[in-house]
């Protein structure tokens, strides 16, 4: 947004950041009021950042402290040394290696299936012409609104009867199915923006519908695939409800269920390892977010229809 008087830069009065951009202001009259406004908004932004970042910094610092430091030093004290003992403890004693592998083994295969089947269905619903596609699209949409609680019990009974309880299959299957409605809906929306003529041309060249989907359609929406993949990754990776329902033994726990059980597992609270475990759980997410924050923000807000 460019304002009417662009002479005064609208930067918060954070020392250092604003100075190189300051230009002489031709309108003297309002400048002192402007200055006050800048200081107020600068203070507000600073407060906001402290509120958002503060807890995270405290968590990171805590992950390096020893148990005695936790009990004897004030809560805001810096750790006395930077050692990774807590991380080693959480990773080995806390079984985090196992939990991480369970999360990876369930989330990534279902992501792959969701992207493949979701884009195929989105293409069929949006590009192809057939009777009843409107009704099918609405059926998928309904799946976004229905609470997951509604399907847990029948699924639990079915997995039990099929003998899948005690394996990672229930998680993988349920993740795939619950992610499909949103993926289908988003992919259909993205295919709407691709001109029909492209597919018609491919057809006239004798490509066949299936081939033109894989060779022409998919490459055209690869950004969309990436966005949908990111959205679903965060939803599945952070899932607690489904993982909690279908992991009946310790060796099946995902990262989230493992972390939830961490405090109970070690009796009275072991602060350092607990903080390290929280940090470990956050690291993968943090790395992805640092590199892809624009796409993540865009993708997750696009997927807002799923509460």
């Amino acid at each position, binding site marked *: 947004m460019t304002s009417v008087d662009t002479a005064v830069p609208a930067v918060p009065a954070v020392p250092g950041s604003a100075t190189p951009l300051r230009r002489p202001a031709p309108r003297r009259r309002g400048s002192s009021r402007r200055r006050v406004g800048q200081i107020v908004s600068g203070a507000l932004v600073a407060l906001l950042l402290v509120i958002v970042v503060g*807890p995270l910094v405290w968590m990171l610092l805590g992950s390096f402290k020893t148990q005695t430091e936790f009990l004897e030093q004030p809560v805001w004290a810096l750790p006395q040394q930077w050692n990774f003992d807590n991380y080693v403890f959480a990773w080995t004693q806390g079984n985090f290696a196992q939990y991480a592998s369970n999360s990876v083994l369930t989330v990534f295969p279902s992501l792959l299936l969701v992207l493949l089947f979701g884009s195929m269905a989105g293409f069929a619903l949006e590009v192809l012409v057939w009777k009843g596609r409107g009704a099918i699209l609405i059926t998928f949409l309904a799946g976004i609104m229905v609470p997951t609680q509604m399907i847990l019990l029948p699924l639990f*009974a079915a997995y039990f009867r099929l003998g899948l309880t005690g394996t990672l299959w229930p998680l993988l299957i349920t993740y795939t*199915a619950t992610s499909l409605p949103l993926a289908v809906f988003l992919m259909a929306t993205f295919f709407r923006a691709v001109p029909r003529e492209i597919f*018609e041309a491919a057809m006239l060249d004798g490509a066949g519908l299936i081939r033109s989907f894989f060779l022409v359609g998919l490459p055209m929406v690869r950004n969309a695939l990436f966005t949908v993949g990111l959205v679903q990754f965060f939803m599945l990776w952070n899932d*607690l409800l489904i993982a909690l329902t279908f992991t009946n033994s310790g060796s099946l726990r995902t990262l989230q269920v493992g972390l939830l059980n*961490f405090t109970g597992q070690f009796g009275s609270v072991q602060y350092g390892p607990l903080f390290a475990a929280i940090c470990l759980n956050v690291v993968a997410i943090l790395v992805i977010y640092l590199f892809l924050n624009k796409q993540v923000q865009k993708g997750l807000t696009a997927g807002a229809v799923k509460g």
Partner: protein
Amino acid sequence: MNPLLGDRRATLILIGPALLIYSVVMLVPIIVSFGYTLTSGNAITGFTFSGLENYQRLLTDTRVRDALLLTVRYAVLMTILQVGFGYLLSLLYVFVLRKWSSAVRTLVFFPVVLPTVAVALLFQQMFAIAPQNGLVNTALEAVGLSSVDWFGDGGTAFLVIIIMDVWRSMGFYGVLLYAGLLDIPEEVFESARIDGASGFGLVRRIVLPLSLPVLVSSLIFSVNGTLKVFDSILALTNGGPGTSTSPLTIYMFDTSFRFGQYGYGSTVAFLLTVVSLLVTVFIFRANRRDLTKD
């Protein structure tokens, strides 16, 4: 009709896998779950038909009443707060930070992607009182107030849940509403400024009416999501102390898996589904009426 893009076999191959998985793992269970509401028992002991018994119990169960009240209280409060703070953030991004807002947006959005369990354990430590004060109680004592046992009482525990979830979600609504504000043409602001509108007047008379559609859809998303709150409360208070912070979702989980009552658990899940559908329909209709009035 476009004959080139109409082919039965290809359509079936493309839509088949998704439709099959969706039907078998979601649609059929929804119907089966509805059937469960007429039974008692569970997957291990077997089911017996019990008629409308579960619904009768639902109407007289005081725990359901409390859980429903908590769910609604949480959804209303959270919707107002997270959309409200999100709106303030988006105004900050657009009108104060302008071109420099990208870094702040990125930072404030970060809690949105964090695993809820991790955030909940962190907030447990921040609001801890025993064996050692957390950050919040230490700060309270520093300004001369006394420590509070936040998780010892349903009221204060609820407050911590709200604070944590606002912290987690405001960046999300900030970005969502920011995108909505960017869609308003700049000329509108320019001409409003020339007409003498500025500051809060500009926001109230120009920005608010123009961003109403995106605000309403944010409200719908928010209500739809907050009615299903589970992760954050389970990980932070586990519904306690006692059952004072148990929403419908946690009560459903308890009845089903702790007490093994699948029939009654399904009935509670059904109630939750009905509530979220009703609220969504209600907001949609209220929204439509307002738009036609103007």
